[in-house]
């Protein structure tokens, strides 16, 4: 048997094996010992079970006999057949269908109750049957619903009544029975169910829990390399892509509605031109009619959301178009320039001729207020399609390097009039209180003031039951010409609202100390008029009335935050400017009392200006603090002057807007030609506007309204006079002689100032205004250029004064005055630079 040492080859599954009969191979046994070379294959059984007695016996029996013997089989527990009740239990015949049975997907979902009546139930049902009608099936259904309706806690009778459609008596019987039975039942439910896994994972080893979900881990195939990570990546990618699609769709919608808006605006202009509605009476009428259709808002005493406020504000804004000097286009542009500041809902779409629903608005606004990086791409793309974009240069553009933050609806209420619970200051001055107006002399009822866009002061009116009384409540016996008999008529609302924006009395806080009972909640019981009067007079109710400026016109109210280093200085500067203003007033005396030339609208502009000034001052004081710049007098002066420059520029720009419509194109073109510089147009416009208004001066020269306007006038004229003070080389003389060029200087100053200032918000404003400018005048190519260059200047770039210097000549090379003003500002460059980036955020958010 030396062959034993022979090593057999491994068994090759692909190698043919000849098949022999044993009888043909008599010498096979000689090779038998080598057979072990073939590796033993595992049986596939558990080891310990493999050794089990019966199995081994069976296996050996099979090997011995070639088949199993009856007594060698593996014994199993017996099964009993022929249950006697089977025939009765499963009644009926079932005929085998000829075709193979194919089950319909939803044919299994029968509406049968899962609960099956047991004998105990049967007795109960039979007993119940004597009293009322019930079938076994009905009973089962009821129990089924009760069972499925209750989780850990049982359904109560009330809930049961809701669950079941049977009449109450039956429900009560069954419910009582069910609750009794349920209490004695061991397993949680009367419908036995396989235990479910618990969410907390505590049931992992409970042997009675079965059929756990296996969705926790994604099934990845072993032989593929798609593991969970890549799966998640794919999920993320898919989500991102779908998001991109959504955004693009929204952009599409936005652009479409923009186009729509433009078409409508064009249509309006054409219609008006055809009418011809140059005096815009028709427009005013139309707007007034529209206002009639608008619902009257009942403002909650404490507004719940900022969007609510803003919507109301828009409402008021819309009514500002008593004189629709502003085209719709302006409105659109405004919306864009201001959007980052306000919640998406508050975008003043109302002004547009087409009606949007707020939901659309929200979505519409979404992409542009989005702060995500790819929004840059969007703005880029919108620039790319500028050629066919109807909005053209009106379209809002993002400035490179400028950060735009999304509006934060949660804390948008960082305003003095917002209650502290919403993050505001809750300034008592801005609570709802009785408010009177000067222009239509009357009491408005409950209202509160707040600063709106562009520094407008807005009055939020609250509806109370006292309104009627308040209407008649007027301490002044003077008749009010505009008061309409309908207290809440929208028309009157629109009338008053123009003058509603008038107030912001700086001294009001001192005059009306925080009274113990501010009228924040309207008393439900109607009060006697005299009672109310009494209350007011005894200072129990606060009553707000605009005041005439006597001595300290602007200081206190406009600087709510004290502690600025230059506070007193600013005040003094302001007073000085005031005096300068008054002097200028005297000089402009050539025109019939400039105090009277202002319409309510202009007054409003002035208010804007004030607010802007305030903001500027605030900024600058911060700026100073940050830069640790020694605040020299000149510096402050310069700052003030700049502020005022800007303010005046603001005014000029807005005035321009008004003149845009007031004047025919022709006259404007003349002016453009006359001045040669684009910026001059603004000033010219202002002048024209002033002139116009002065000729068509309002007749209310006396009484309080006069006082307010007088107070306004000096401030309006401040810029010129004030800028004169620090920089003699500046536009002082011209501004003092209220010639058109003076205003042009103001406007140019504005340009230069804003460029130097580089406060994005203002720049934006300017851009907007300049864009407006360029619309009506076809010749203003340069005008287009200016805003662009301005817009292209990122705040960071402005850190280098050189760049500004380089650009400035381009912008307004012709104007030496502007240069001068810029020189003036160059002094505070370091401070500016330091603040530039900070203010960006502040301004925009």
């Amino acid at each position: 048997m030396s062959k034993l040492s022979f090593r057999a080859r491994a068994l090759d599954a692909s190698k043919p094996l000849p098949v022999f009969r044993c009888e043909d191979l008599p010498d096979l046994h000689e090779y038998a010992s080598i057979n072990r070379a073939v590796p033993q294959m595992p049986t596939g059984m558990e080891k310990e079970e493999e050794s089990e007695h019966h199995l081994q016996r069976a296996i050996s029996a099979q090997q011995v006999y070639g088949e199993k013997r009856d007594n060698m089989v593996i014994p199993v527990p017996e099964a009993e057949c022929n249950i006697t009740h089977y025939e009765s239990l499963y009644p009926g015949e079932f005929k085998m269908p000829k075709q193979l049975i194919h089950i319909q997907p939803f044919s299994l979902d029968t509406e049968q109750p899962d609960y099956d009546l047991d004998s105990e139930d049967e007795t109960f049902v039979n007993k119940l049957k004597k009293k009322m009608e019930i079938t076994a099936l009905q009973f089962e259904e009821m129990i089924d619903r009760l069972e499925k309706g209750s989780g850990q806690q049982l359904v109560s009778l009330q809930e049961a009544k809701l669950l079941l459609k049977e009449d109450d008596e039956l429900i009560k019987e069954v419910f009582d029975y069910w609750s009794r039975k349920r209490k004695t039942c061991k397993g949680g439910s009367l419908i036995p169910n396989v235990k479910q896994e618990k969410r907390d994972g505590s049931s992992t080893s409970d042997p009675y829990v079965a059929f756990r979900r296996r969705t926790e881990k994604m099934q990845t195939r072993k032989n593929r390399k798609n593991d969970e990570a890549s799966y998640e990546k794919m999920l993320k990618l898919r989500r991102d892509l779908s998001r991109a699609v959504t955004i693009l769709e929204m952009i599409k919608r936005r652009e479409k509605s923009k186009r729509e808006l433009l078409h409508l605006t064009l249509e309006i202009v054409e219609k008006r031109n055809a009418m011809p509605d140059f005096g815009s009476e028709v427009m005013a009428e139309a707007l007034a009619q529209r206002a009639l259709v608008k619902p009257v808002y009942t403002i909650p005493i404490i507004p719940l959301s900022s969007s609510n406020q803003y919507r109301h504000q828009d409402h008021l804004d819309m009514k500002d178009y008593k004189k629709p000097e502003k085209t719709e286009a302006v409105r659109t542009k405004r919306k864009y320039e201001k959007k980052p500041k306000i919640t998406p809902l508050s975008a003043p779409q109302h002004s547009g001729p087409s009606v949007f629903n707020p939901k659309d608005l929200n979505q519409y606004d979404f992409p542009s207020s989005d702060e995500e990086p790819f929004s840059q791409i969007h703005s880029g793309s919108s620039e790319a399609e500028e050629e066919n974009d109807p909005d053209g240069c009106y379209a809002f553009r993002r400035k490179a390097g400028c950060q735009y933050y999304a509006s934060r609806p949660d804390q948008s209420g960082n305003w003095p009039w917002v209650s502290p619970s919403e993050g505001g200051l809750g300034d008592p001055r801005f609570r709802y209180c009785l408010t009177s107006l000067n222009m239509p002399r009357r009491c408005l009822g409950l209202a509160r003031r707040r600063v709106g866009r562009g520094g407008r002061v807005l009055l939020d009116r609250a509806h109370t039951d006292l309104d009627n009384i308040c209407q008649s409540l007027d301490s002044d016996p003077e008749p009010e010409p505009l008061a309409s008999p309908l207290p809440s008529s929208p028309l009157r609302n629109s009338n008053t609202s123009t003058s509603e924006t008038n107030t912001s009395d700086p001294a009001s806080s001192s005059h009306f100390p925080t009274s113990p009972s501010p009228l924040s909640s309207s008393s439900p019981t109607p009060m006697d008029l005299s009672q109310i009067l009494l209350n007011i007079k005894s200072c129990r109710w606060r009553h707000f009335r605009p005041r005439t400026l006597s001595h300290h016109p602007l200081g206190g109210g406009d600087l709510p935050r004290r502690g600025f280093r230059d506070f007193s200085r600013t005040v003094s500067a302001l007073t000085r400017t005031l005096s300068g203003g008054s002097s200028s007033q005297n000089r402009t005396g050539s025109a019939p009392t400039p105090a009277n030339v202002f319409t309510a609208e202009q007054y409003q502009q002035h208010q804007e200006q004030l607010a802007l000034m305030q903001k500027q001052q605030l900024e600058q004081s911060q700026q100073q603090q940050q830069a640790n710049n020694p605040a020299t007098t000149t510096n402050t002066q310069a700052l003030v002057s700049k502020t005022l420059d800007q303010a005046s520029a603001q005014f000029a720009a807005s005035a321009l807007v008004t003149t845009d419509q007031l004047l025919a194109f022709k006259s404007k073109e003349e002016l453009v030609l006359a001045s040669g510089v684009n910026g001059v147009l603004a000033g010219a416009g202002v002048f024209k506007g002033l002139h116009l208004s002065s000729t068509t001066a309002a007749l209310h020269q006396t009484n309080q309204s006069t006082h307010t306007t007088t107070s306004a006038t000096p401030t309006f004229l401040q810029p010129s006079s004030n800028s004169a003070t620090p920089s003699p080389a500046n536009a002082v003389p011209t501004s003092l002689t209220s010639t058109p060029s003076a205003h042009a200087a103001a406007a140019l100053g504005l340009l230069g100032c804003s460029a130097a200032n580089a406060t994005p918000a203002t720049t934006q404003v300017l851009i907007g205004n300049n864009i407006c400018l360029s619309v009506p005048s076809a010749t203003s190519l340069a005008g287009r250029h200016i805003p662009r260059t301005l817009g292209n200047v990122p705040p960071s770039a402005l850190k280098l004064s050189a760049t500004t210097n380089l650009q400035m000549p381009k912008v307004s090379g012709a104007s030496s005055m502007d240069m001068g003003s810029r020189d003036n500002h160059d002094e505070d460059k370091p401070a500016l630079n330091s603040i530039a980036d900070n203010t960006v955020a502040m301004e925009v958010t």
Partner: protein
Amino acid sequence: MTKMADNTSSVEIVEGCRLPVLRKNQEHEDEWPLAEILSVKEVSGRKLYYVHYIDFNKRLDEWVTADRLDMKKLQFPKKEAKTPTKNGLPGSRPSSPEREVRKSLDLNLQSATAPSRGKTLPTPKRKVETVPLATQVSPATPVPSLPSSAEASQASVFPTVRETNTFKSREDHDQLSSLTTNGTARRLIPSQPGRKRKANCGGTDEMIKVLQYNNPQSASVFLPPPEDSQDSSDGIPSAPRMTGSLVSDRSHDDIVTRMKNIECIELGRHRLKPWYFSPYPQELTTLPILYLCEFCLKYLKSLKCLQRHLTKCNLRHPPGNEIYRKGTISFFEIDGRKNKTYSQNLCLLAKCFLDHKTLYYDTDPFLFYVMTEYDSKGFHIVGYFSKEKESTEDYNVACILTLPPYQRRGYGKLLIEFSYELSKVEGKTGTPEKPLSDLGLLSYRSYWSQTILEILMDLKPDNGERPQITINEISEITSVKKEDVISTLQYLNLINYYKGQYILTLSEDIVDGHERAMQKRHLRIDPKCLHFTPKDWSKRGKW
């Protein structure tokens, strides 16, 4: 075993005791095989003992009265048995419900605090055992220092584990639970490499692989007996693997699952005595008879309920598509995802007769092929097999069962044959999921033998040459996986090495035996009657 003192009335027969127990064998002769007491209960003043006959299948376990116990040869559980030394004997784990309670208390303790090291290493002897493993493990961990003692090694290893897995608190918890069911922390250590790597590659499947890979090592390193090492390798403590339908490890073996819990099931005209535990709702386990609807397999607590149910249930066949019919035999295909209720009911019933079947997870990834026999009442279930929609391991059968009343009548082979017919249509070879039961092994071997012998005997001489065939060819023709072909050839002793090559030899005994067997095998699958188009489940989003 201090806990033993519970049942010490006159004789101390407690869980874990071993003693000869009287039982009748198939020839109705008395025999006294050694048995282990798994549980004790008292019914109307009489004590009943749940016994497992050692070296007999669990299906023969039963409740016996005291008079069947041979008290003279009573062996108490060894002291060591407290720590789960499974001395290689099947089903020898001594455990009691009472201890389970204690363990769960331990679990609470340990999950609340980090497992104390003192506890994890109960005996000095263990320490010594764990040392090599710990050193073996340490390369995978950032602390590779050779520890001087197991304590130290654990200390070095443990924080790493916790650190890498803190976010998987649930699994940690489970780890602990398994740890405490075992009584020691030894399991923690072997599973650690897997867990370590799991944190890296993040997939259960991966982990299973890793653990299986590690298995031989740990088994060799581990002193403890094979069952234990299997526990440690396969017993992913958190949750069993998600593929397949059978459990090969007993790490989740609760004492509860080792005992039959249903006394009797009435299904159609049959009363079945379950063989194994099945997780039917617990409140139904106390019933003398559990009633099942013959067609929808719904479980009902009483005959009255079944009667009521039958008025509402209009099924007369399994709720699936009939894909095969010849004579009275039909096959229905049921999607485990689309028809959950039926699939679950079927699984619950099947679990009564399949020891290794797991119902841990839902039935979604399975198809169920139910074989029925038609009579005037409808299509009665005879048996079934389940099949994974997508199998990564060439399984063409997950669980397979002929219901006891139909056993030993050729239905099992018919089921197997049908499963291979399906594989033939799919153009794949297949094999049943492991582990096989004793009956499963016998049935499959028998089927394979007959199938292969059929082919070999049909081979005709080819040009006067010896007929020859490759193993691959057999596999292709039969759809039986190559390994199964080889093992069958081996089992039948057909492969011989003769003059430098392997040959297949057919002995007269084999041929005769085969011919006799084939004469008895009249139930065959007719491929022409099969109407089956395989679906490519991998292309579907879900099963």
